């Protein structure tokens, strides 16, 4: 019988009951008495001097309470950037001010120019449309390589250029890498684009600001993955509100995928305006606004080269990447193409020498920041496409070439600063090969050919660094925040537990899986544990959910807090049973004295803690509540091998994904069903990136894919059934659960498998196509076939 409770069981997600019955409480469901509504007037040009704003007519329109422009934010800080990257010359990155409302200049379509607060949303919107802007349009820079040319229009006049930083990693390795290339037996080169994406969570962003004059306190309800981070950034850097006077609530959040990590102008605006007006102020993003104001993802242009010796061993890797920052630095933007990307360029391979160059560039586009995987998908895609290309050039089996170069001994210190604690790349590849019937592929390909179709098989590996992150390490790398996580475990008198965590759940199922962890440690049912998250007023300071960190870091904090609970409970149990504390054992929710039949139930101990009539008050305090903060000493390194089988219709260029298999090593697994769901969702997003999703601008900086009429999201009919396996488990060596994190793997591991499969299909048909940039739309594939 499979377990139905505790670690390793797959109970159904308890939160789904409310999500699926319409009982979720999302930010837009929150209406504060007396609230007013804001509509933002957003720029419809990408680059312009803002000479003046005439809001006279708009201000006189029905219901309008006040119209705000940048002038109203005099003395208010810009949106802060949470990570400072140092360039290859040791200089800090160029860091322009990111104002709440455009100050004198418009820098991207969608930037907020003015804000109207009115009694109703429609009145606010009507008035926003009546505001007249006096603009002088400027030439826009959209293409990154154009943006860094001499004489290019500058996005920020006060910066020396559009180059945010030129990062070399590891700069000391560069000469040795170049030498290895000069001595290589074979060099494979690939130029590619990692396409810009719009995250598109189902729930658009929402913010409600509220202000209480009687105690000078502010509350922000917002769609965030990390309410404490928003409280810190907005309070300390933007509005100057001390944390004890600022509460941030992120209730049920309908998907984040990274784009709800960041602190946005709308949050600061609603909080600020609520105080100014003495009225709560609410904003609900339209989907159109989401396309042009949510931080975008990816958008790298890369040249990557691999050097091999005569025996096909990888000897060096060299990359040259342009990374789009957009018009301003979003909260964690600078870290994505550097520390979340360059450090992963070793992949699963023992390449001894690696040099990564990244030029981060300002353009007249929406800011770009972390999106599911954040830097690691970009690293994986280029590396795994390159290794596939190398195998084809050398005429060797792509799986064999990978296996030959696998890292096999752990811990392994890569030449790009990180140390993989554990892994077994052959094991996941073995598992994958058992899942995909590689031997039968030739027959399946022949079947496709008989129907006029080209069939391809693509395989790749991935590694990621998650469980983000050791604070001491990220601090050295430029992070302006710690990256621990927290948990408070409160045991009630009658034995039930409430766990308050700084992690945030917005689709990951934490309320189910976290309860399994804590319940398992005590030996009680999951239903005895409730998880509370999302409100800075009732959870300890935590850094939130992203980077597949919540179980590895947040779960570990819960383990540490529960260990403290158990240690104290044992003292109480020892007192109740008049035994020595060292002899007390906790199993299945009961304390026993080793070697005796004495026993006291969990509930009796918890009751004693709160009704301390017979209690060692001289030794310990009453009550049973403990807090722990957990800061890991390394990242975790999930890894795996993915395969994809596609069929290409040469007449139309249409790619159909026929089969997808994923063999992951996530270390220990708490809830296998939730893990599989996370992988499914990740693969769906990876297939979206590889085949469908394309955030495109024209040369004037107009967003071409600004709605679902032109931005193609993956749908169920685009996806095959997924075969997923997580039975290969090398537990993380440095966190108490031995877990590694699974949230991003699918999105990191899947795009190269799909593109490798399509290239395999085309080459099987005799087409000399080495690469197609994502998304592999029918038109692009047909173009490659007929190029």
């Amino acid at each position: 019988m499979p377990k139905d409770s505790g670690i390793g069981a797959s109970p159904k997600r308890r939160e789904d009951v409310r999500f699926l019955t319409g009982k979720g409480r999302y930010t837009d469901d929150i209406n504060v008495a007396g609230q007013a509504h804001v509509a933002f007037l957003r720029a419809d040009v990408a680059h312009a001097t803002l000479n003046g704003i005439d809001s006279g007519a708009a201000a006189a329109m029905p219901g309008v309470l006040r119209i705000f422009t940048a002038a109203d934010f005099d003395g208010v800080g810009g949106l802060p950037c949470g990570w400072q990257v140092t360039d290859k010359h040791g200089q800090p990155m160029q860091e322009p001010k990111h104002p709440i409302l455009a100050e004198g200049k418009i820098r991207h379509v969608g930037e907020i120019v003015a804000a109207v607060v009115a009694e109703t949303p429609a009145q606010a919107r009507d008035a926003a449309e009546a505001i007249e802007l006096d603009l002088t349009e400027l030439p826009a820079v959209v293409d990154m390589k154009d943006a860094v040319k001499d004489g290019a229009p500058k996005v920020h006049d006060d910066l020396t250029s559009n180059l945010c930083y030129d990062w070399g990693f590891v700069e000391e390795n560069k000469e040795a890498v170049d030498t290895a290339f000069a001595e290589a037996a074979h060099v494979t080169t690939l130029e590619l684009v990692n396409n810009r994406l719009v995250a598109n969570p189902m729930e658009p962003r929402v913010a409600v600001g509220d202000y209480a004059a009687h105690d000078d306190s502010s509350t922000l309800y917002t769609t965030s993955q990390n309410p404490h981070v928003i409280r810190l950034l907005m309070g300390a850097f933007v509005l100057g509100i001390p944390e004890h006077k600022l509460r941030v609530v992120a209730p049920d959040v309908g998907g984040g995928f990274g784009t709800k990590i960041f602190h946005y102008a709308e949050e600061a605006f609603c909080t600020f305006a609520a105080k100014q007006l003495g009225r709560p102020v609410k904003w609900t993003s339209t989907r159109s606004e989401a396309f042009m104001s949510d931080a975008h993802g990816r958008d790298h242009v890369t040249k990557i080269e691999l050097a091999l010796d005569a025996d096909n061993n990888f000897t060096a890797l060299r990359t040259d990447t342009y990374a789009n920052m957009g018009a301003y630095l979003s909260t964690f933007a600078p870290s994505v193409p550097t520390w979340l990307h360059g450090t992963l360029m070793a992949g699963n391979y023992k390449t001894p020498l690696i040099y990564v160059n990244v030029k981060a560039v300002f353009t007249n586009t929406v800011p770009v920041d972390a999106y599911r995987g954040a830097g690691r998908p970009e690293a994986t895609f280029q590396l795994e496409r390159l290794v596939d290309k190398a195998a084809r050039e050398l005429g060797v089996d792509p799986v064999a070439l990978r296996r030959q170069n696998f890292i096999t001994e752990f811990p392994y210190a890569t030449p790009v600063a990180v140390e993989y604690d554990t892994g077994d790349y052959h094991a996941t590849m073995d598992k994958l090969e058992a899942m995909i019937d590689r031997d039968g592929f030739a027959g399946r390909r022949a079947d496709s050919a008989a129907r006029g179709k080209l069939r391809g098989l693509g395989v790749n590996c991935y590694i990621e660094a998650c469980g983000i992150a050791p604070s001491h390490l990220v601090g050295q790398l430029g992070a302006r925040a710690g990256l621990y996580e927290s948990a408070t475990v409160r045991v009630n008198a009658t034995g039930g537990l409430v766990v308050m965590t700084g992690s945030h759940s917005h689709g990951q199922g934490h309320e189910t899986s976290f309860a399994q962890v804590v319940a398992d440690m005590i030996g009680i049912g999951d239903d005895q544990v409730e998880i509370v998250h999302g409100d800075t007023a009732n959870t300890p300071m935590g850094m939130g959910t992203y980077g597949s960190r919540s179980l590895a870091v947040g779960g570990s904090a819960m383990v540490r807090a529960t260990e403290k609970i158990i240690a104290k409970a044992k003292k109480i149990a020892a007192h109740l049973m008049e035994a020595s504390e060292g002899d007390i054992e906790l199993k299945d929710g009961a304390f026993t004295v080793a070697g005796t039949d004495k026993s006291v139930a969990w509930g009796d101990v918890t009751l004693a803690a709160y009704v301390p009539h017979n209690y060692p008050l001289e030794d310990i305090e009453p009550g049973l509540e403990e807090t722990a903060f957990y800061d890991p000493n390394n990242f975790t390194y999930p890894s795996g091998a993915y395969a994809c089988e596609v069929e290409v219709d040469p007449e139309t260029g249409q790619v159909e994904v026929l089969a997808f298999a994923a063999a992951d090593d996530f270390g220990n697994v708490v809830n296998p069903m939730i893990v599989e769901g996370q992988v499914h969702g990740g693969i769906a997003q990876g297939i979206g990136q590889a085949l469908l999703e394309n955030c495109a601008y024209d040369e004037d900086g107009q967003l071409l894919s600004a709605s679902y009429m032109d931005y193609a999201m993956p749908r169920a009919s685009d996806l095959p059934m997924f075969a997923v396996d997580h039975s290969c488990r090398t537990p993380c060596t440095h966190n108490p659960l031995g877990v590694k994190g699974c949230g991003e793997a699918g999105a990191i591991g899947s795009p190269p498998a799909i593109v490798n499969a399509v290239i395999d299909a085309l080459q099987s048909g005799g087409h000399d196509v080495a690469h197609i940039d994502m998304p592999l739309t029918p038109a692009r594939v047909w173009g490659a076939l007929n190029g």
Partner: protein
Amino acid sequence: MYDFTLDRPTTIQDAVAALQSDEAQPLSGGQTLIPTMKARLAQADTLVALSGVAEMRGICTDDQGRLCIGGATPHVEVARETAQSYPALAYLAGHIGDPAVRARGTIGGSLANNDPSACYPAAALASGATIVATGPSGARDIAADDYFQGMFDTALDEGEIVTEVKFPVPQAAAYAKFVQPASRFALVAAFVAKFDNGVRVAITGASSDGVFRWAEAEEALTANFSPEALTNLAPPTQTMISDLHGPAEYRANLARTMTARAVKQS
């Protein structure tokens, strides 16, 4: 959405009368107009809803054997009711948008809007349908060949609505659609209809002039009704749309490919 007044007439006569005001616009299934209004890209003082006009809804056969479809008939009803009598038309109607769109969207609304990527214009043009337009001076018949006048442009006069569409039923016909990956409208689709006196081919989605008849293909298929007849043909690329979803050459290729598939299926 801007404020508007909703008028709900129950007869064609009342609907036409209500539409004589300059500020009035007809609202059929609303599958284009309502989203456009919600995005504040369209504005109407008065919407005259046609969904309550019972005499504009339903399907019958006239004495010439034509299928006569009321202008306010939703796609789902056409898909269901013409499955036996005109399977190619039923297939087309059953593959427009999603179930919600098919439940509300109407044939008259689609033809009046004449979106260059819409499905129905291809059926009407390839079938040689007659569009019945009703206005203040009564009803008039417009041949499909005269009706489609370019992207979002038709022969309808101000104040006229599509009250009925009459489809001659071909000997053989099929509709082959290649969907645009985002909108799932036709990126390019072909409707092929074979009659006693020749073959008609209508292409939608491809041209900046909207739906068009591909004369060269019609000629080739009239001589030899097989996919092979199209092997070396392609519609001219000058008017083909080039956008995010494909260049003109790709759309021209799809026009041939979809036409060939329609021939094969018919």
